[in-house]
Structure formats: structure tokens, C-alpha cells
């Protein structure tokens, strides 16, 4: 079947490609948070005065450590959590006090939340059923969505007869059938094994591109965020550290937390500034015109075409050098060796000073 049938209701009819259609709808952002705070009673708020704009048709990852407020943010977007202060907009329309169903969002839960007493097909068809769509019609549509997630062959199974990955596909189909303007995913891949995780994530990306709607995806995995995102929002301690296109976040982290959390960066002090340098721009050994730091080789990780070497500096910091295997075998350093890490000053990216905590 043609995917365009599965697009949000607001989308124009086929045959045009969906993500192009989104541009014609005239709204600026798919989702917007304006100074949103969430507190549970006295004490530090769970989400502290955050503002965020998610452009049309983006795959946006909310990334951060456990307890940073990213899930709460997602649940506020979904309408499953009250907003203490601030406003939420979906497609430029304020939805702060609307019911989940009236927001045009749909949430995919971490535990999938499939209805245990309904078959895959009926799970997917549920939202049509509650809208009063006739049985044959809703089953037909639901089957189409099961096809989209390649689950049509297991349509009659109950959730507990499905594997984790299969349950997730059903949950995805069930979310999509509501034709949401924004799909919210709460750690959708965390329960899957690594192989499935990679497969599913390309699947998610494919579906997002085809539907052209925004996906907002909560994760604590940097790899996942980097692989999927158009836009990454890094959160820590109830605040947004950085919200920017993926490349910008990776190459020019705003502060040491972002740099460290995303990985691939060494955070060090140079000329009293805190700076970050990409690990693949660092090398072992001194070179003229390059800045350097001395340390002891603490660990060597062979990763195939690359080798990750960890250096313990005299101050106790850990620095990483990512070398090509050719370079590595040329130098052949050993654990325990004293070594020097050097980098080009132009590769330094100056970080904002971190607040305490």
C-alpha cells in the first residue's frame, strides 16, 4: 500500500511525498516548550524552566543521564504529566492543558504498554475502535500499519506471544495509526538486544522520513542519539545543556558536560580556558606547533580499523586518543608506557564555564 495513506490527517492527499507536504502546512515548529517547569512538591524541580523548539519533520533525541528530566519532559509533551509552569505548543497551537488525545501527539511507552488482552491487530485498531470505526474498516487500516512495521504476519498473536522487538513494532504501529503530528518515544530501544537495536533504529529513521512528522525520542545512549537525530537536546539536572543539530552538538559542545556526555571529545584546560578537542584529532607523540600533555597509557582498546588509547595524566584526568590502526601499529605503544598526547591549537573548541554541580 502507499505510505502516503498513513500520513497525518492534516497531510494533503497522495501522491506527493509526505515530508514535503509538511512544509505547506504553515506552522513554524512541530513542538515548542516555553519556559516549562515541573516540580513535585517542594525541593528541586524535575524540569527547570526549559525552552525548546523542534523544527518541522525533525528526528529529535532528548539525551541525558538518568534522572535528568528528559522523560518528564516527554511526558509533559504527551500530556501525561501536568506542567507546573510554562506552555507547550504543538504545531504552533497551545496544548498545555489539553488532554493527550487532543494534542496530536502519540506516545510509545518504554514497556510498550500493549493491551495484554488484545491481539496485535486489535491493539493497533484500538484507537479506531474507540472512534467508532466499523470492524472491517478498522481491521483493514490496522493491517496496513502492521505491514508498515512488518508485523502483518503476526496480527493475531497476543502481546505475550511476541518477542520484545515484535511487541515494539506493534506498539509503533498502534501509535502511528492515530496519525500523530508528533510521535513521542520513551527509550524505545532500551529493552532490545544490540543487533535488534541497530536494526530497529534504522527502521525508526526510515519511517520518520517517510511520514515526515517529528519524532521526539528519549534515550540515554549517545550512539543512538548520534545515529538517529536531526537535532539533539542534551539535558542534565533538569536543564537543557544544549539543543542543536547533531553535528553542531558533536563538534561544538557548549560545555564540558555535553562534551563528556556525547563522547569523542577530550576536555582539557588550555590557556586557562576549558576547551574540548576531538579524540580523533589527538595523536601520540610531540609535534612542533602542537600543544601537548603527558601521561601514562592506561588502556588500549582495539576496535578494528581504529584503536582507542586512554592516557592517565599526572593530574589524574583521563584523555583519549583515537588512532587509525596503521598509525597504532607503527608506534606500537604499550600499557604503562609514558606517552605524550598532542593536538593542534586550531582544533580546540572553547567551552562555556560549567556551573557548579
Amino acid at each position, binding site marked *: 500500500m502507499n505510505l502516503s495513506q498513513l500520513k497525518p490527517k492534516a497531510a494533503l492527499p497522495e501522491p506527493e511525498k509526505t515530508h514535503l507536504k509538511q512544509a505547506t502546512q504553515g506552522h513554524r515548529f512541530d513542538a515548542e516548550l516555553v519556559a516549562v517547569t515541573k516540580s513535585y512538591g517542594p525541593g528541586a524541580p524535575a524540569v527547570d524552566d526549559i525552552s525548546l523548539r523542534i523544527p518541522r519533520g525533525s528526528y529529535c533525541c532528548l539525551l541525558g543521564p538518568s534522572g535528568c528530566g528528559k522523560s518528564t519532559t516527554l511526558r509533559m509533551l504527551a500530556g501525561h504529566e*501536568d506542567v507546573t509552569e510554562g506552555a507547550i505548543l504543538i504545531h504552533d497551537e497551545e496544548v498545555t*492543558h489539553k488532554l493527550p488525545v487532543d494534542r496530536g501527539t502519540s506516545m510509545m511507552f518504554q514497556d510498550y504498554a500493549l493491551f495484554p488482552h488484545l491481539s496485535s491487530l486489535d491493539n493497533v485498531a484500538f484507537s479506531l475502535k474507540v472512534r467508532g470505526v466499523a470492524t472491517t474498516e478498522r481491521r483493514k487500516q490496522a493491517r496496513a500499519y502492521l505491514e508498515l512495521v512488518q508485523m502483518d504476519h503476526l496480527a493475531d498473536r497476543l502481546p505475550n506471544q511476541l518477542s520484545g522487538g515484535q511487541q515494539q513494532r506493534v506498539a509503533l504501529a498502534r501509535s502511528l495509526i492515530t496519525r500523530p503530528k508528533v510521535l513521542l518515544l520513551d527509550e524505545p530501544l532500551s529493552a532490545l538486544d544490540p543487533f535488534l537495536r541497530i536494526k530497529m533504529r534504522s527502521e525508526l529513521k526510515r519511517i520518520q522520513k517517510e511520514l515526515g512528522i517529528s519524532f521526539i525520542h528519549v534515550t540515554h545512549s549517545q550512539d543512538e542519539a548520534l545515529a538517529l537525530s536531526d537535532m539533539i537536546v542534551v539535558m542534565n539536572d533538569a536543564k537543557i545543556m544544549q539543543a542543536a543539530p547533531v553535528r553542531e552538538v558533536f563538534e561544538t559542545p557548549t560545555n564540558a558536560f555535553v562534551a563528556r556526555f556525547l563522547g569523542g571529545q577530550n576536555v582539557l584546560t588550555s590557556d586557562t580556558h576549558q576547551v574540548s578537542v576531538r579524540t580523533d584529532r589527538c595523536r601520540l607523540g610531540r609535534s612542533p606547533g602542537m600543544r601537548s600533555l603527558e601521561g601514562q597509557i592506561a588502556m588500549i582498546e582495539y576496535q578494528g580499523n581504529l584503536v582507542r588509547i586512554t592516557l592517565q595524566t599526572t593530574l589524574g584526568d583521563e584523555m583519549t586518543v583515537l588512532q587509525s590502526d596503521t598509525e597504532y601499529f607503527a608506534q606500537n605503544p604499550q600499557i604503562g608506557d609514558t606517552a605524550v598526547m598532542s593536538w593542534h591549537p586550531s582544533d580546540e573548541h572553547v567551552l562555556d564555564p560549567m556551573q557548579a554541580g
Partner: protein
Amino acid sequence: MATRKRKRPASFYVLATLLGAYAVFLYAPMACVYVLSFQGPQGGMSFPMVGWSTHWFQVLFQGTGGQGVGDIPSAFRRSIRLALIVGVLTMIISVSAGMAYRRKFPGANFVFYSAIASMVLPGIFVGFGIALTFNLLGWRVNWFSSGIGAQLTWTLPFGMLIMFIVLGRFNPAYEEAATDLGANARQRFWMVIVPIILPGIIAITMASLTSSYEETARTQLNVGTGNTMPMEITGLLTAATSPVIFAVGTVTTFVSFSLVIASLLIMTRLAKRRSSRTAQ
């Protein structure tokens, strides 16, 4: 629990009113019991009140005290002793059986339907059957043999059903996780299952304590000499009338109220400890 955290929906008020009305209905006859227990010394078991006094409580606590109210303190002691033993036995046996039902095993239907039969058979008939069986075998009935046995036929089916509720949808992953971490069967039981089903265990013990304390039909022929509390009350009601029975009702409510509050405190504390342990 996740619900709409917005404005209370209209259904909230409708249902809250319903609950309120139910509470009034529930406590109305109880209120009569409580009020009438403070009947004056000349008063009877129904309205009007002939003055107010704590006379009937004194009668209750002073035992016979020349008031001819039967030997309520001894009956109470007997009942409590029996209830404690039956409560603990029911808890152990039901938990054990509940664990058994997590697998398929031959005879599962047999035990299950025996339990249902035990619930369904008229109590006096079970009691009579047991007494008759003991009689045919030439055994003497006694509170600690036939008495406990007869009460167990009443409490165990409920214990089993509660275990079914408690263990239903009990996620086997907890146990599997514990096994992965090297726990043996005993550790798995004590360190994983028991803490999780603890509220259920408390519920079974409380429920069987209560039903043991209340049971007469099965007990009366099998308890041997010495009446239990409800037997004593029934005996009293058949030929006398005295508000001391309402005083018993008030005191039981008071005692059980304290018990419930205590176990509630324990449960919420446990729940809190658990949630603080698992809090993100």
C-alpha cells in the same frame, strides 16, 4: 498511578459521592452497635437509650463479675489463641500452595476444586462431617486437632484465592534475575518473592485471623470443651439479652481498627522503603 492529573473529571465527584453513600450504609448499623454499647445499666439491646454509661464495658472486662454474661474473657482468650494458630498455619500453607500453582502439576484441579467444595459446603455440614469422622475413628475432638482442622477448611480456600490474586501476573523476571545473580531457591524465595508478596501475606494472615475468630458453623462441634467467642455470644443471645454484646462489638472494632492502622503503617513503611530503594 497514572491518570489525568488535570482538573478532576465529573466522574470523580460522582464516584466520591457513591463511596460516601456506601460508607454511610456500611457504618449505619455499626453506629447502632457503638452507640448502644454505651447503654445505661438498666437499658436493653435496642433504642431508646436508658441513660449513658460504660457499665457494659466494665461487665465485659471484669469477666463474670456476678453479671451472668457468660465467660466472655475466657472465650475471648480461646478464640484469640485459635485465631493466631490458624492465621499462621493458613499463611504458611497458602503461600506454599500458591507457589505450587505457578507450575502445572498433576492434581492441581483436584486440590483447587476441593478448596471450592470446602468453601461451598454448608459449614455445619462440614463441621458435622468432621465430628462424625472423628467419632467413627474413635478420636476425641479437641481444639488443637479437629478444632484447628475444621477452621482451616474455612480459611485455606480464601488463603489460596488471595495467593492467586497476589501471584497473578507476578513477573517471573524478578526470580530469573535473582537466579542470574546466583541466588538459590531458598534465597530466591526469602529475598525476592517474600518481600514482593508481603502485602498479600499480611492480607492472608489478617483475613484468616478474622474468619477464624468469626467462624462457628464448623468450629462448634469440633472445638471440644470450652466455647469460642462467637459460640459464647450465640449462646448468650439464645436466652438472654444484654448490651454487653454490643460492648464486645465496640471493643472488637476498636482492637481491629488499631490492628489495621498498625499493619497499614507497616505496609506503607515497607512501600516507602521499597520505592526509595528503586527511585531513579
